[in-house]
């Protein structure tokens, strides 16, 4: 994974602390995440046999992971048979080289893109621009963050952190629309973006998209969206490249259908997204539209290693519905950018920890209160808190956190524990000195500053004993 902004997961703690002070950001996030959760809740309420469907979706993903190497080979065979050119990319650099190679090969001057996290992951846009091509994000939200020069901040709602007025201001500046008012409606803004993008679609030489699912048995690529721009990116330009991370494969069209029943409901609260495209190979002789040349890039970028871990591989079940982000109180408070990498929220903290260098992601698994809202929300039953704990264990690797270690020692040595607490009680019963003890994290000072600690009192054991003695004596 490549970092696309000045934010980095290395500074996750500082970035989140800063974000949580940003009142405007919090208000926008609060509104947007409630909106998504509300729509989702209503859709799931009306979803008959919901648990059965969730179980089928989970089972489709489990099948995919347990048979991954076979399914990928099958996918290559069937996609090739349908006329798609299949490429394997071991890492981000290879992925970029393959796509820029295709762009150069077809002399691409204008590239249109459908929303895709995986191309963000490999930082494809700058590489394509370096070939001299113009690159246009065509999803409305992606288009907005592209104009703003920012990375997306949510898996399915890239500009969730922006208000309507932010967008109007951006369009005034970047699209030369000096008269646009801050109170322009969302349909108005959409229309303006659509006008700007329509020309790009018609001029495009190459369309690049991600993949929601790739079907091993048929060699099809499935794309799910609401704006129609992804379909246009695959049909207007003469050449289409679909980029997938390797876990996106599913065995059969039936498995894909099981996932499609759940994905839109969980993501946007829709029974079905407005557009679901199933692309099998390039345009055939008797067909009127579609790309003349179809490519599929299958990217590993660290995933085979994740698959080898019997616990952590569960993170690869994810089909990116984004629901765990919306349900996470931490995400609701800090937004996506604070995570400093492409994937944010609970699943993002997991994926980034697994795919990025360990020394850059030490803090990510700790930015979680273990409340379990994500686990409860995930339609595929991913147990994020458990995976977070596993990652914490990995980060500590024999060097436990200072506080944890001191506490662990004392707690398994009852006498030492009682002595330590007794000493503290004698010296500082209100715990006022606590924040000033050397070696303790500065967070403790903030903690005590904002919360009156209860103080150390005569212990429960002592009071119980005294009470019972009195009773016995009476």
């Amino acid at each position, binding site marked *: 994974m490549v970092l696309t902004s000045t934010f980095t997961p290395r500074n996750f703690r500082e970035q989140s602390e800063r974000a949580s002070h940003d009142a405007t950001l919090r208000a926008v996030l609060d509104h947007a995440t409630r909106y998504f959760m509300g729509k989702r809740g209503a859709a799931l309420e009306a979803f008959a046999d919901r648990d059965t469907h969730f179980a089928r979706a989970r089972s489709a993903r489990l099948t995919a992971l347990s048979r991954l190497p076979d399914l990928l080979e099958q996918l290559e065979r069937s996609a090739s048979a349908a006329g798609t050119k299949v490429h394997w990319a071991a890492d981000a650099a290879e992925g970029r080289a393959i796509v820029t190679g295709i762009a150069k090969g077809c002399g691409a001057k204008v590239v249109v893109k459908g929303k895709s996290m995986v191309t963000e992951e490999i930082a494809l846009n700058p590489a394509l621009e370096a070939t001299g091509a113009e690159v246009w994000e065509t999803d409305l939200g992606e288009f907005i963050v592209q104009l703003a020069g920012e990375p997306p901040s949510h898996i399915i709602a890239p500009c969730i952190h922006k208000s309507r007025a932010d967008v109007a201001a951006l369009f005034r500046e970047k699209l030369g629309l000096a008269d646009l008012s801050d109170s322009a409606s969302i349909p108005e803004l959409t229309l303006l973006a659509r006008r700007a993008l329509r020309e790009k679609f018609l001029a495009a030489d190459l369309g690049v998209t991600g993949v929601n699912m790739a079907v091993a048995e048929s060699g099809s690529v499935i794309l799910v969206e609401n704006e129609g721009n992804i379909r246009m990116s695959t049909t207007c330009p003469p050449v289409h490249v679909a980029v997938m991370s390797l876990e996106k494969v599913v065995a059969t069209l039936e498995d894909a259908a099981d996932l499609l029943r759940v994905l839109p409901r969980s993501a946007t609260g829709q029974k079905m997204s407005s557009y679901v495209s199933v692309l099998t190979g390039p345009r055939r002789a008797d067909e009127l539209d579609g790309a003349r040349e179809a490519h599929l890039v299958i990217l590993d970028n660290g995933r085979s290693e994740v698959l080898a871990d019997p616990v952590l591989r569960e993170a690869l079940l994810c089909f990116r519905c984004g629901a765990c982000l919306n349900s996470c109180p931490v995400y609701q408070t800090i937004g996506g950018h604070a995570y400093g990498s492409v994937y944010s929220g609970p699943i993002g903290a997991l994926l980034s920890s697994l795919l990025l260098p360990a020394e850059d992601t030490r803090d990510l698994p700790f930015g979680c209160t273990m409340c379990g809202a994500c686990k409860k929300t995930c339609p595929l039953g991913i147990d994020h808190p458990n995976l977070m704990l596993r990652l914490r264990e990995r980060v500590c690797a024999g060097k436990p956190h200072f506080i944890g270690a001191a506490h662990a020692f004392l707690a398994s040595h009852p006498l030492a524990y009682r002595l330590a607490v007794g000493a503290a009680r004698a010296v500082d019963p209100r715990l006022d000195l606590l924040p000033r003890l050397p070696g303790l994290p500065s967070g403790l000072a903030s903690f005590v500053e904002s919360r*009156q600690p209860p103080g150390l009192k005569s212990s429960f054991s002592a009071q119980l004993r005294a009470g019972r003695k009195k009773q016995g004596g009476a």
Partner: protein
Amino acid sequence: MRIQLMIPCLVEDCLPEIGLAAVSVLERLGCAVDHPQGQTCCGQMAFKTGDVAGARAQALHSLEIFADTGAVVCPSGSCTKMLRTYPQLFEPGTRDHARAVELAGRVSEFCEFVLALPGAPDFGGELKARAALHRSCQLDGSDAPQRLLSAVRGLTLLEPERPERCCGFGGLFSLQFPAVSESLLEDKASELLALDPDLLVSAEPSCLMNISGYLSRNGRMTGPGRALHVAQVLDLALNGALTGGALWS
């Protein structure tokens, strides 16, 4: 019925009132309460900071302390959950694993336990108050606190807009991410206060400490008796007194 009381370290030294109220309620409901000596901590802190070896050492200690068969009752959802996690810390097939499974099978969170006693949920308690309940994510969705409180005569049970949303504590989280933690806490505190309650109630001591400590620091907690554990509410309702006193003096 004889039970062994497991007291969280936070309760032992900082919130003893909760433990004393739990004893009073359990005895009133006919239980003989043992408090095995030598208790320290369930190991949650070590476990959640990634120190599995430390957690295992503490689990072994707890296995010794609670070696006697019979129900173990704990007035904290998160510590109860930790005891139920012990089997995960040991190799299946080993003696310690078997002991951990056995212990996990007989530990109950206080409200769950009380709700399973004969006569539950209406034990005839009465308390005229508006009580705002923080459910606590640590109780894993259990509705035992709501059911117990609803059965108290005169008590109006109020729930905030997002009843299960985290209060922002998260142990080490609140020290490593103090500003984020405080934002969550402010959300929680204002949603609770918006209910205009007489009492703030939770079955989780750490959440209660977090929320009430914040309100107290900011002068928004009026009256020391306002923040109560469910055990303390039941104590008041059944015995008409707060055995052990209020959390805040």
